[in-house]
Structure formats: structure tokens, C-alpha cells
């Protein structure tokens, strides 16, 4: 109980920063719109590739959602690096606070932001003509999947931040991971049009799990087995990453 309370208090800390900084809020909320419009314009040509079927905005929306989720989540660890340099982290670790709450609170805040961004993308895509034949339920699954994937990468980012303690290391890590994982998935390209080795790699790529689950749920003829297994995998990954980030504090303290 105490752990949950503490988690929520840590989440609130992030939420307050978000609400109090109009510039930061503005960037967070405009980013999804820019991405959807830019990628939408750029990748419209995908639909003209022989073998592509379906409506491009329906196809692209889950891809953009997932791509934004990974890249937003990747920066979560910056908060911990600030806390370490500012003395906040040491004060927290000298208290009996549940270590899991420090990570979980920050991850939940990150996931909430990502889900808010997802809602914005979904609404804008609707304006641009997306049909969401999967209905409201399908859209909710897309939001959930974005949140889960974001949570996993936010924990990963936190863990790396606590271990490395350097902004540069985190920036390098995000750059190394986010784009390759996006391009090794069906986020922007239909599976049948990808080289076969990428198709193989994509099966083990969490970003792709989120893309296929979200896309299948949002369209008609949802493959619920596919959706359920991918959600299960993503949830397991999110928990594993959270355990890693929580353990990272022990490692950090050992080095003090």
C-alpha cells in the first residue's frame, strides 16, 4: 500500500512539471501532430508500391503512435540524471522509500504522457480520414499498447541513466536504439514489402509487437490471438525492465 502511494506521489511530481511548463507541454502536444503530418505526407507514396493494400492513414497511424512512444520514453532517464546531479536522488535513496516507487512513478508519468500523445494522434488521424474500423475498443487497445511499450522503454532508460549517470550516454543509447528498432518493424512499411531478414528480426522486436497489435486492433478483422499474445509479451517486457531499473539503484549505491 505504502509502495503504491509513494509511486503515485512520484508520478504527481512529473505531472506537475508537465502542467506548469507551457513550453514543455506545447512541445509534447505538438510533436505528435508534426510527426503524423510529416510522415503522412512522406509515406503516402508507400501506398503506390505494388503489393500495398489498405488505406495509408489507417496503416500509418499505429506506426506513428508506436514510434513516438519509443522515442518519448527513451528520454525518461534524463529526469534521473538531473536528480543525481542535483542531489535529489541521494536524498531519496537515504530515505526508506520503496526503490520500485522511484522508477514506477516516473514510468507511469511517462506512459501517461505517451497515452495522451496517442489520443492526439488518433484524433488528428480521424480528421485526416482514418476509419478505425476496429471501433473504440480497437483504439483503446492501441493506446494501451503504446503505454506498455512506452513503460518498458522508460524503465530501460531510467536503468541506463542510473548506471551511466551521463546525459551523453543516454543520448547515445536512445539514438542507437530508437531509429533502428523503428525501421526493423512494420511501423512505416508493410511486412510483405520488407526484406525477409528484417521480417525475421521484426518478430523479436518489441516495437513490432506493439505495431502489429495496435494495427490489428484498430482495423476490422482483428486477430485477437495476435493482439493478446503481443500485449502479454509487452507486459512481461515492461515488468522485466522495471525490475532492471529498480535493481540499478542498488548498483548505483554500491558505487557511491
Amino acid at each position, binding site marked *: 500500500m505504502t509502495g503504491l*502511494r509513494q509511486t503515485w506521489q512520484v508520478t504527481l511530481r512529473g505531472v506537475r512539471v508537465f502542467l506548469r511548463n507551457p513550453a514543455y507541454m506545447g512541445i509534447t502536444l505538438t510533436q505528435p501532430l508534426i510527426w503524423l503530418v510529416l510522415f503522412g505526407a512522406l509515406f503516402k507514396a508507400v501506398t503506390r508500391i505494388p503489393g500495398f493494400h489498405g488505406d495509408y492513414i489507417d496503416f500509418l497511424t499505429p506506426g506513428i503512435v508506436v514510434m513516438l512512444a519509443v522515442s518519448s520514453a527513451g528520454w525518461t532517464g534524463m529526469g534521473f540524471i538531473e536528480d543525481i546531479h542535483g542531489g535529489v536522488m541521494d536524498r531519496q535513496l537515504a530515505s526508506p522509500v520503496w526503490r520500485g516507487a522511484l522508477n514506477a512513478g516516473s514510468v507511469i508519468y511517462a506512459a501517461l504522457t505517451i497515452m495522451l500523445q496517442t489520443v492526439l494522434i488518433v484524433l488528428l488521424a480521424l480528421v485526416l480520414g482514418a476509419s478505425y474500423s476496429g471501433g473504440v475498443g480497437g483504439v483503446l487497445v492501441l493506446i494501451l499498447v503504446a503505454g506498455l511499450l512506452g513503460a518498458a522503454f522508460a524503465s530501460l532508460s531510467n536503468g541506463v541513466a542510473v548506471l551511466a549517470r551521463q546525459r551523453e550516454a543516454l543520448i547515445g543509447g536512445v539514438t542507437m536504439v530508437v531509429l533502428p528498432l523503428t525501421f526493423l518493424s512494420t511501423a512505416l512499411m508493410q511486412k510483405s514489402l520488407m526484406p525477409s531478414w528484417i521480417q525475421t528480426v521484426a518478430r523479436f522486436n518489441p516495437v513490432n509487437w506493439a505495431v502489429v497489435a495496435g494495427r490489428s486492433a484498430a482495423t476490422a478483422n482483428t486477430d485477437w490471438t495476435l493482439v493478446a499474445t503481443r500485449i502479454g509479451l509487452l507486459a512481461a517486457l515492461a515488468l522485466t525492465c522495471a525490475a532492471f531499473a529498480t535493481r540499478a539503484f542498488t548498483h548505483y549505491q554500491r558505487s557511491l
Partner: protein
Amino acid sequence: MERAIEAKDLRKTYPPGVTALDGLSLSVESGTIFAVLGPNGAGKSTAVRVLSTLSRPDSGTARVAGIDVLGDPVGVRRAIGVVGQKHGSDGEATGRENLVLQGEFYGITGRDLRRRVAESLDRFGLTAAADRKVKTYSGGMARRLDIGMGLLHRPRVLFLDEPTTGLDPEARVDLWREIERLRVEAEMTILLTTHYMDEADRLASRLAIVDRGAVVVEGTPAGLKDDLDGDTIHVELAGPDGADARAALELVGEIDEVSVDGRTLHARARDGGTAVPAVLAALEAHGIRAASVTMARPSLDEVYLRHAGRAFSGKGAQPEALRMATTDREEVAA
């Protein structure tokens, strides 16, 4: 509970082989203020981190508030308050929010928490600024908030790691008053690290001088000063003839010990009043000109220089090295 802090033979080495604690032992009586003095890099902060469970020693034992820091770190965390060298508050949050979050971390909630937060704001003069972001606070205000956060759960032992570093003189004196008040009103044990002599002299009932990861001397400020047994005479030379001057003074009967620090001579005499004329006469006899001669009654500075400083090394070239040097020490074979 007789002893609030009991540390025995703490050792800690950081990779690649930097020794931070080299057999440090401390014993602090409950309800007292204990100061740990030492140059930068002496191991003060490492000692605080180990005693506050933030870090683990490689070997040695420590009990804080009667609880073993290695066996029950969470128990120790509940019993202590820690105010680090850096500001531990979140600048983007208000003072009140910082205090609330801190309370939640200690399991304090609801009405009890709100009451304690209001009391803390009031006590540390932050009520008017309670709902402003901490990044708008002055250094003194932020420091008072740090201490308020460290005290919110009413710890039995409080660690203050260089609490007044970076504060202006007025804020320092305010903080000193606050710390003294805490000891009296809250009957708390306070361990503070500092490199300001006046701070230790004013606040601490006992102090330990730490150098190179171990305690070099421990006692009451008065006792340590008495142990020095005599006055110190400082001679500022007009020329760079330090070695000659040292040789000259060593022949003076009233002088017990001499060292050179660049152009400054430090000499210890049982009775400074009679030694000064003898010193001047000896210098003149050797044709050495002195720019100034001053005499000091024993102060904590003298104690510090004697035990952790580099003044009596005969080697240190910069006066600042007296207080700050971390390397290249050579004990004088007196």
C-alpha cells in the same frame, strides 16, 4: 541508548584503488553535536554516506541509533535524517510539495503529514514562500528547506554534510542558531562535517579531525586547544630565505618547533610573549628581514593545522594548501 553513532574501522576503496576510508572509527554520544573536520578529499562525505546507508563500506562495522547499518539499512534510514552537500530539493516543485513528498517517503500521510509540513514551513521561516517553486529560493532558504526535509520524520540522528558551504555569512550564522536550537529542543544527535573551524568551534561539543580516511585526533574543542600547549608565532619574511630563517629559529631556546611554508615561518612557543623578541633578535643576528610578525593564542585553526594541515610539513608552498591540500604530505619529525 548511550551512543548514537558507533563506527569501527570503516574501510572503503573506490576503483581504481582510491582509498576513501582507511580504518575510520567514530563514537558519538547521544544528544550531542559532533563535528567531523578535514580537508577536501579526507573522507568526510564518504563517512556520512556509509553511516547514512547510502553507501556500503568494504569492511568495518557501524551502528547508528543502535541499528546496524549493514544488517538493517532500512531501520537506520527510518531513524536518521540526512542533509547532503548538494541541495536535495526539487527546484521545479514548491517548498510545500517537496516536504509532502519527503513525508510520503517516510510513510507519513494525511492530516499528520499536512500538520508536520505546516510546522516545518513555519519553523524554518518558509511559510510565505511555501507555494513558490524552490528554484526561486535564495541559497539560505533552500538550505533551510533541506534541513526541514531532513527533520520532517523527527529523526533521532541528523547528518549534516557541510551544511553552510556556499552560504553568505548572515545565512551561516542563522543556520548555526538553528542547529543549536535543534540539539536543545529536539534532543537530537547531530553529526556535521565542515571545513570551517569557527563552525566546529561554535557548534560541536566534540570533534574529530579526519585526514586520509582516518581520524587523526578527537576531543572537545577546548581540550584540543589546550593540548597544543603554547602559542604560535607566524613570521612573514621579506625575502625568500626560508631555510636560513628556519635554521636561525631552531637555535632559539624559547621555540619548540619551527616550520616553513613559502615565505611564512610557523613557530610554536610555550610563551609567545617572551619568544617574539627572541625570534626577532635571532633573525636580525642572521641578517634576515621580517615583513611582519604575529602571534596567535591557540585556536582551532592551530589544532587543525597541526593535525591535518600542511603547515608543519616544511614543504607546502601555497598557504591555501594548509586548509585544502589533499596530497603530498610529509609529517615533520619534530
